[in-house]
């Protein structure tokens, strides 16, 4: 049975990465209206702002803007590209950096995500993301012994303008056999 591939290591190894760049991701596709529509479709929502250039310009945008909450999606690389072996039956995982930090604990739970949005992302933009580890706070919770680790992701577009800074915190822990499971 496939499981999330968590990189195991020591807290010293994790702490050595504080302030350092963990990874850099480049979105495989340019921002496009079809991608926006498919995303909003799942929530039964439509607005001319996200598909009609004239409307967007009337509201002061330089083009059709993307919903801000799609920023991370636009930074994701391909799961397969020419030259790679076939995906076959392999379970693919998004390359989110927090599970790649070497640390004790096989379990990971997302706890907080704080996003600040700056320059709009427009149709046609290419989004790049740089991830840095910014804090590790050790704690025992009802789940077990572990640490809250926060990664700061800075998203920029091809012009180098920053579009979003997002801080994502996960609790990495060794499940406490006697403890209650997250519900």
């Amino acid at each position, binding site marked *: 049975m496939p499981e999330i591939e968590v990189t195991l290591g020591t807290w010293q190894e994790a702490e050595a990465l504080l302030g350092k760049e963990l990874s850099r991701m480049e979105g495989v596709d340019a921002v496009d209206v079809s991608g926006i529509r498919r*995303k909003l479709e*799942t*929530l039964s929502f439509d*607005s001319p702002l996200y598909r009609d250039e004239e409307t967007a310009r009337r509201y002061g945008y330089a083009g059709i803007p993307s*919903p801000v909450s799609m920023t991370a999606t636009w930074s994701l690389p391909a799961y397969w590209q020419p030259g790679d072996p076939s995906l076959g039956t392999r379970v693919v*995982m998004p390359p989110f950096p927090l599970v790649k930090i070497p640390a004790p604990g096989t379990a990971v739970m997302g706890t907080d995500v*704080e996003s600040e949005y700056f320059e709009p992302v427009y149709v046609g933009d290419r989004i790049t993301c740089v991830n840095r580890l910014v804090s590790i706070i050790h704690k025992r919770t009802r789940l077990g012994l572990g640490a809250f680790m926060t990664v700061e992701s800075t998203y920029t577009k091809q012009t180098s303008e920053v579009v979003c800074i997002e801080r994502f915190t996960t609790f990495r822990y060794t499940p406490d056999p006697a403890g209650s499971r997250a519900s």
Partner: protein
Amino acid sequence: MSDAENLAFEDVTVGTVVPPYSVELTLQRLVMEAGANRDFAPAHFDREIARAEGRKDVFANTMLLQTLFEVMLRRWMGAAGKIRKLGLRMHAMNYVDQTLSAHGVVVECTPGRTAGMVKLDIWQQTPAQGKTVSGRAVVELPFRTK
């Protein structure tokens, strides 16, 4: 879209309630969401894998929660407002086969030079689990013209 449908800074005050917006977290909805946001982690749509990982069931991913808040705010603001900050604390997984609703209430209004900043308490809840997500949003609203 007419300008009259757009929320202006003068339209809101501390205590103003944002109309809630909800989504049915069917398994198919979670699959559609994974396809649209490209987070293919199986814990969000493969019940067998989710349970093998120790989860009760598959659950909504973070990007769905963020977009549910964005849609709630966009429906309320119309096209003119801008989302400046979204902060979420996830208290519990939002499991499949229930209705997840997003809510918000204005807690602070600060006029600026060219627009107003409005801070909101925001949260999401399900009938079975109660409040599963809480947080803060900051939106920028234009001043009324004329």
